[in-house]
């Protein structure tokens, strides 16, 4: 296995975080807007087929940031639309991301059972 992927994961993931930190520090864009903005950006890049090449080069450095979530939403919708037609956009949207979403809900529930989720 090529060790270069570790280097690129570090550089690409770091660069994404660095840009976002600059946006937070230098603009008044709220956290929520940055989060959704990145997801939409990921959707656009995914739709244009530009994000997967980045994942191939940088691995986790590209899949961990939220942009990857937007990419997965777009890819799932496109793949299902190709298989089943227009309605596939709706049914396929969460196909690739359902693991993450379901895991978030189930683990939140389990953690809430043993902690004081009052924040």
């Amino acid at each position, binding site marked *: 296995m090529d060790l270069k992927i570790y280097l690129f994961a570090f550089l690409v993931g770091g660069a994404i975080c660095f840009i976002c930190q600059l946006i*937070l*520090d230098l603009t*008044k864009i709220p*956290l929520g807007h940055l989060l959704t903005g990145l997801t939409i950006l990921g959707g656009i890049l995914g739709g244009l087929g530009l994000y997967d090449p980045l994942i191939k080069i940088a691995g986790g450095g590209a899949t961990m940031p939220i942009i990857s979530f937007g990419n997965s939403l777009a890819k799932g919708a496109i793949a299902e639309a190709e298989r089943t037609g227009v309605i596939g956009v709706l049914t396929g949207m969460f196909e690739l991301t359902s693991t993450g979403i379901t895991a978030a809900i189930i683990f939140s529930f389990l953690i809430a059972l043993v902690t*004081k*989720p*009052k*924040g």
Partner: protein
Amino acid sequence: MGKKSGQQTFQFANPPMIISTGTVAGPFEGRGPLASEMDVILGDLHNGKTTFEQAERSMLCQACRLALDQASRSTSEVDLFLAGDLLNQIITSSFTALSLGIPYLGLYGACSTAAEGLALGSMLLDGGFCSTVLVATSSHNATAERQYRYPTEYGGQRRPYQQWTVTGAGAALLGYTGQGPRITAATIGKVVDLGCKDPLNLGAAMAPAAADTLYRHFQDTGWNPDSFDLILTGDLGEIGLKLCREELAEKGVHLGENFYDCGLLIYDREKQDVHAGASGCAAMGLVAFGKLYRQLQKGELSRVLLVATGALHSPTSYMQGENIPCIGHAVRIEA
């Protein structure tokens, strides 16, 4: 009449005294430089309660009881309870009023509540409507931050100019028996809006309100900044205090070293990572009813002007893109 002087200031013919005070501070505040001035310091943010809201309520109630105990008064000897806090529908104050059983008027002035309560209480006393009034206010980091900013477990990154909501409660008993510093004048502020929309930068939003009320107080009374040992704003923080100073300098009022902010006194800003300082009703509540009250009693300070400012927005109003209107009330206390 004859008690109003100038446009917005009321001078008390028979100035009421602050007979006693009570302060309860959160654990984080208990590690700050004013720890020794607090009556009670909580071990944790829950204070043995199920929710943070109940914890805040228990703090406010305890602060009120401390003030009553110190003056050896029972709740039935108090004519009115004036209180306010930051939570929706001021639930902390109203639930506390329920457990105290004192006739109650709820106040909402956001972080200006301490001064609003002192001003209003003094008017009621000087007007002869009451003989003893209990004034109180509280804020809690975990309840206020999630209502106005982000859910606490979300862990949103804090901006460098952001302030830290104080966990604490302060109460003061006003009346004419016993001994204590006297409230001699109050300037009621106008709502000011210079177009600030950022709910994370409240110091900057509130600075013009503090400047406006201070300017008005000096104009109405003929006193000047040098007349006071200390002029203390509520929770402008580092940025707001600087802006307020600049704004008054533009109007020809130059504030010296005696001008400072409660929000800069509560935490050790080198060691406690609170960015621009403290905010919340309890910033002035803890400082004014704790250290400041004792310094006035001991004669270390003889003339103090408190200017508490409040941001009067709601989470709904700023999410709909409205500006953040602010207010400042000033209270003059003399030993």
